């Protein structure tokens, strides 16, 4: 079903950013605000993502990324603002949106006392997947873990567990995928395999992805566009190349550190001004 050869991955990492992206925004967030008492976690945030776009949501801990994703998934109620996903309002059509989206995080887990098959079969039912047996086998093959099908999830390695979580995330063939640090705590080899598989699926299905990661090299490789957040606000956004040019920096990691320390992207001082 999905191509397992390296061509899609090559295309993915070398493609012109934004290629294959249509005009209508799949995710449209306007003026999103979340206050917890006196603390403003997200402050009048507006963002959009187009079909097939991979949008990196970046920033230091406490920047508001997780809260933003949670509001987009309907786990947390916004204080103000609107979230429209696939043209539907999260307030009134949450279940319809969830039917066509999915989420995977390094920080959540599948029941460890069930086998891989049992876990995926349960979620296949929750998402109303037809022919789930065939679908599960395809996904396990895709993520190169067909041998764990009857293994108890608690006995899987971190790499296998991450890939099983991704199998769950792809079960319903989502239009939108929220990926929260999908390669966190993976060794470089497995992390590369995960990225490669995501690339293959992306090439095949044109899935919109909201991607968070603290690995800036990975972000540069994967994301069409990035949004850097600090203190609940957008500090800078654009293609990784645009952001680097604006910050006059060689790496997103330096940009990240600068934003994490200063809470903003400091304009570089030109040599003339310096003199």
């Amino acid at each position: 079903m999905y191509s397992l050869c390296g061509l899609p991955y090559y295309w993915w990492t070398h493609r012109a950013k934004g290629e294959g992206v249509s005009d209508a925004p799949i995710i449209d967030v306007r003026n999103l605000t979340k206050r917890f008492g006196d603390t403003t976690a997200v402050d009048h945030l507006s963002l959009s993502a187009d079909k097939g776009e991979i949008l990196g949501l970046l920033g230091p801990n406490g920047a508001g990324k997780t809260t933003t994703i949670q509001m987009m998934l309907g786990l947390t109620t916004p204080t103000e603002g609107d979230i429209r996903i696939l043209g539907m309002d999260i307030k009134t059509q949450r279940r319809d949106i969830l039917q066509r989206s999915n989420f995977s995080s390094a920080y959540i887990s599948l029941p460890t006392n069930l086998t891989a098959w049992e876990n995926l079969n349960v979620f296949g039912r929750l998402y109303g997947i037809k022919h789930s047996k065939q679908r599960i086998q395809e996904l396990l093959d895709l993520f190169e873990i067909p041998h764990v099908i009857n293994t108890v999830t608690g006995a899987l390695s971190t790499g296998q567990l991450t890939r099983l979580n991704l199998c769950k995330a792809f079960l319903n063939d989502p239009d939108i995928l929220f990926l929260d640090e999908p390669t966190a705590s993976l060794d470089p080899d497995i992390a590369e395999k995960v990225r490669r598989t995501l690339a293959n699926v992306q090439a095949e299905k044109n899935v919109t992805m909201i991607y968070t990661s603290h690995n800036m090299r990975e972000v540069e490789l994967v994301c069409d566009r990035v949004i850097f957040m600090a203190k609940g606000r957008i500090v800078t956004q654009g293609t990784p190349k645009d952001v680097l040019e604006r910050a006059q920096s060689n790496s997103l990691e330096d940009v990240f550190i600068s934003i994490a320390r200063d809470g903003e992207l400091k304009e570089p001082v030109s040599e003339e001004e310096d003199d």
Partner: protein
Amino acid sequence: MWTRVSGMVLRYLYLYRRSLARAGEVFFWPIMDLMVWGFLTVYLQRHVVADAVLFLIGGMIFWDVLYRSQQAITLSLSEEIWIKNVINIFIAPISMFELLLSVCLMGVIKAGLATLVLGTMAALFYTFNIFTLGLALVPFLGILLLFGWAVGMITMALILRFGKAAEALVWGIPFLLQPLSAVFYPVDVLPAGFRHFAGAFPSTYVFEGMRHVLQTGNVDVSMMVKALVLNGVWLVIGSAFFGWMLGQVREKGFLSRLGME
């Protein structure tokens, strides 16, 4: 050595200081035990009860139905929190009604199996035939199952709101009801103030009704009607409280914290 010991003691004291539920546990269980067994002793001292064994075994089997029914909801959802699967469930396109229905059905299965096993064992070892209750058995069990769901929803709402610190409630709340529901003794044994509370729970009428059937062979229909009406009230309260608390949890962002910490 004592520095290390005091370090560990301090570690547990910090826990109790931060969690009212944990601190309450220190007193809760002994108080509940004292109440149940104390009132039972008072009852047995006051009356020569020929059917005491039947009442106790019947009470025990019926209590288990209520307990299993409540536990099916609270344990199922608590386990999703413990194993960090709760987010996966809450981002799946399943409605709260469907989720609650599934755990309630688990309650029916668990309580049904437990009743079957306990009923068989009671017949074998104590010559207690649960079918002595006749057709009244069905509504009695039904009322206890439904009340267990209502209590389960209230308990789960509190756990969602207060998180892992409130996990003791999973086991604690049913046992708060046990002395007041007059499981092993008649309501008359309770002090007057407690009797008012007892009258608010459908379970009280089931246990009173069970003893009435075992003693007289007749079903007190008025008790059953009261229990059914109260069950309706508690189910409305339970589901409304669960829904309201879930809204609060979403508002305060606790759901994701529960699932990812």
